[in-house]
């Protein structure tokens, strides 16, 4: 049977050579069905839109640090916070980790020639592209983008006195999200099917690199969570345009008139604003893990490679990813402890939230034990990993504050929350992305990044995130509410808090500028960087074993790789070097070391030669 599969694979490859190698610039680089090109398209688009998000955070910081000095109106501030949040969470992090890393790594790490559905994959990117265009179009319509806050809570989000809502802002935002969800669904189905169906011979589930486990689980979460946002978006669109009342109770405007969608529609009545919040966070909390799980995976793989050590407790790491994935669906209302929902829900959601801390803690323990007695090469990707452990640690610990309902009540809606989610979901996810980009850049481009620029980027960013976000916890202790463009005389905050805000702004702007060093480094090194060999980090996983660097269409040359071992054979006793690639057949100088994984009933090595 093994032989038959092998032949089939080769035939499949012949098909590729004869019919599928695309010709012409349009098929090859624009409407490409090659997962590697699509990954690069996703990544570059996400980085581009992320830079806009970064610019918007500059707008916010200028206003907060120096209120009124830069001519930023309150309305523009609110538009900036809204677009910044949505861009960073959805259009940067989700798109880059699933669309970028997922696309590049799944076929290469699993030994496949491409995704299961290449055409669908291409469509996924182009839907994403359209969603970005629609989103950014809102900057150019009358009234500008919506300023409803990134959570888009009704009734505010669809009332005309919200910045941007009198024009097309909110319609474009909701429409863009709907298109994005279509793209994410097409991508997610593709990733799940590819992982389940197209693994190379010998690549059992328990031999998969943790990056794949993270992306695979996150894709399933995305398929289950995004529909909630989709129906929320559609219902809100109906409330806004057709005058339905899904989320709209009877409300009055400042003149005391009952509000309706337009003068010819009946007044809103009977809807529930909380229903939207439930739908939003039923998507929104798994969304945190849609971003975090691929990040966990990338960190695990980069960490093991540069520590020259097996990932500690692979088994537990896989189960922790799955446990987090499952529990992430029953914690959403911890975002709503002070929303006015039935207060008894607080007991349940505080408990589930603190339970999810346990598998998350396991991951942190296992990362740091991977470092213990390792042989650590402090390459740039490794620095980002260590930075990640530190920022994820502090962000995770403050999660224990905000998840524990009674501790959340004083801190909710203050700068403590800003500090928490930026560190745990923004900074940590971005650090994982940087770890991944620095790690895989030589494979994607065949060239190395410039070391001086890389180190400058890391050090300024690492110091910067602590200088910017650590003091925000203390502003939260003071009780400083979020989403205020300025803190007038109405509130008794100490003058020193204003100085602190100015200080944070300066640090944030320096850190923002340094990101352009990274952009320049990528652009310059992609063409002028030092040439890289196929496996510069001496890594075990399959993507580094391609015959060509960068890998060509079809990835593997005439025959597919065959996998003989798990992804973490670093420093195996008795081996003649400190890593054994996954496609290395067992021998006297390359012993198998993953028998501990066979003992748990998850093995599938019947095809082993």
């Amino acid at each position, binding site marked *: 049977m093994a032989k038959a599969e092998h032949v089939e694979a080769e035939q499949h490859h012949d098909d590729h050579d004869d019919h599928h190698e695309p010709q012409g610039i349009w098929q090859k680089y624009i409407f490409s069905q090659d997962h590697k090109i699509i990954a690069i398209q996703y990544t570059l688009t996400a980085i581009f839109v992320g830079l806009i998000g970064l610019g918007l955070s500059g707008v916010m910081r200028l206003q907060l640090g120096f209120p009124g000095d830069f001519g930023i*109106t309150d309305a523009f501030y609110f538009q900036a916070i809204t677009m910044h949040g949505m861009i960073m969470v959805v259009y940067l992090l989700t798109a880059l980790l699933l669309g970028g890393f997922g696309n590049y790594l799944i076929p290469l790490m699993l030994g496949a020639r491409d995704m299961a559905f290449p055409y669908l994959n291409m469509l996924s990117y182009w839907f994403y592209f359209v969603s970005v265009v629609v989103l950014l179009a809102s900057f150019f319509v009358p009234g500008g983008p919506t300023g409803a806050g990134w959570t888009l809570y009704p009734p505010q989000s669809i009332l005309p006195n919200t910045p941007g809502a009198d024009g097309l802002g909110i319609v474009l935002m909701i429409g863009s999200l709907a298109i994005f969800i279509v793209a994410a669904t097409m991508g997610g189905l593709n990733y799940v099917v590819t992982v389940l169906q197209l693994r190379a011979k010998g690549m059992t589930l328990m031999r998969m690199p943790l990056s794949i486990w993270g992306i695979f689980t996150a894709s399933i979460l995305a398929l289950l969570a995004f529909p909630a946002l989709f129906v929320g978006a559609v219902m809100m669109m109906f409330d806004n345009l057709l005058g339905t009342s899904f989320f709209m109770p009877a409300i009055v405007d400042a*003149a*005391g008139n009952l509000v309706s969608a337009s003068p010819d529609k009946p007044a809103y009545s009977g809807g529930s604003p909380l229903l939207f919040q439930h739908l939003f966070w039923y998507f929104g909390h798994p969304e945190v893990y849609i971003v975090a799980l691929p990040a966990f995976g990338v960190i695990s793989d980069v960490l093991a490679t540069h520590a020259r050590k097996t990932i500690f407790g692979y088994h537990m790491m896989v189960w922790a990813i799955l446990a987090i994935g499952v529990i992430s669906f029953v914690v959403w209302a911890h975002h709503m402890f002070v929303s006015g929902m039935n207060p008894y829900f607080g007991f349940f959601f505080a408990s589930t939230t603190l339970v999810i801390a346990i598998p998350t803690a396991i991951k942190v323990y296992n990362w740091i034990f991977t470092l*213990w007695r390792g*042989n650590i090469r402090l390459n740039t990707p490794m620095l980002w990993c260590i930075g990640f452990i530190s920022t994820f640690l502090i962000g995770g610990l403050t999660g224990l504050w905000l998840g524990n309902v009674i501790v959340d009540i*004083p801190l909710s809606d203050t700068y403590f929350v800003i500090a928490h989610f930026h560190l745990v979901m923004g900074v940590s996810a971005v650090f994982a992305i940087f770890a991944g980009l620095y790690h895989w850049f030589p494979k994607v481009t065949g060239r190395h990044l410039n070391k001086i620029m890389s180190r400058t980027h890391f050090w300024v960013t690492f110091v910067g995130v602590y200088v910017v976000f650590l003091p925000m916890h203390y502003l939260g202790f003071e009780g400083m509410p979020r989403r*205020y463009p300025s803190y007038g005389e109405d509130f008794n905050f100490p003058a020193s808090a204003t100085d602190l805000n100015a200080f944070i702004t300066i640090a944030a702007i320096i850190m923002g500028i340094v990101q352009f060093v990274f952009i320049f480094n990528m652009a310059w090194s992609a063409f002028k960087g030092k040439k890289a060999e196929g496996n510069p980090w001496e890594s075990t996983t399959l993507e580094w074993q391609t015959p060509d660097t960068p890998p060509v269409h079809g990835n593997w040359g005439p025959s597919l790789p065959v996998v003989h071992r798990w992804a973490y054979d670093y420093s195996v006793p008795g081996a003649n070097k400190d890593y054994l690639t996954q496609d290395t057949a067992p021998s006297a100088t390359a012993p198998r070391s993953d028998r501990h994984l066979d003992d748990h009933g998850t093995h599938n090595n019947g095809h082993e030669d």
Partner: protein
Amino acid sequence: MAIGIALILLVVGTLAFHFWSPWTYSELASNWGQIDSMLSLTFVVSAIVFVVINLFVAVCVIRFRYDKDRKADFDPENKKMEWILIGITTVGVIMLLAPGLFVYSEFVNPPEEAHVVEVVGQQFAWSFRFPGEDGVLGLSDMRFVNIISNPFGIDPDDPAGHDDILVQQEELHLPIGQPVKTQMRSKDVLHNFYVPNFRVKMDLVPGLVTSLWFTPTKTGTFDIACAEYCGNGHHTMGGKVVVEDQASFENWLAQFPVFKSEDSQVEVSIEEIGSRIAQSACLSCHSIDGSPSVGPTWLGLYGKQETLSDGSTVSVDDDYLRESIVDPNAKIVQGYAGGMSAFANLSDDELNALIRYIETLSE
């Protein structure tokens, strides 16, 4: 190596920042000392974990940095240690969760004897209602709202509402030492009643009545800040809570009208009627003392030349003001975002009263 030292400096720097930082919790002025204890407990637990893990990583990267003649340990798993760590983490989580839920159960069960105050939110102002003699707040519905005769939307047919005391200002007084349950609702969008010194906060949700409770334990004046984004003027939606002794509180409360009495008002001047409309509908966004707000200030507005967003100028007279009230986005003053609600339901008399009131601010 450098990253190891950086992590050690991070730990030292963070602790130094904590102990030297002038920024800390606002002074506690309610019974919720237990919340502060939970904050302290959580702080200690998370600080210990933060220090230990960062230092552990620092030691690793310094001690086990690359040496080409050395091989890393081969150490794929250690089930026993992993289960011990899971056990320790579980104990830590229970240590935080159990007392947390215990305190929370007090938060969701207000004491029987708590007196009720209604907190009403609207863009961008607070108002308050006390239940009067009967201790019961009258029913309310948005359909009953009229900004002149019934700004709270109290059901005129519910006798329980007839003695309700209406406090239409942003300063709330409370007697010291008495537990109070705030019943909260919103007339338009989400708001959040948040007094940092009391520690507790809760959203105001249109269509729902939400609540929280606390006992003021210190006299003084405390800030109210809206903590749920409510639109363009969110950050201007401030207020004050004054905590005082019972006698002063009763004196203060006695000055406010009872709901029914509003219907039988004595003769008032046209400017006074305009002033009342302004109080109810306008002054959360327009100041009358020249200070900047969501919209232009009314001080000295009447008769002045105003520059519009398209660069043209217009003189502020009756016609301009009438248009700006009925169709506010027709002309936007330079430097402002627009987006004011149209007050198209005001009668001609009411419009005139409001304009005469604005005129008095230019005298």
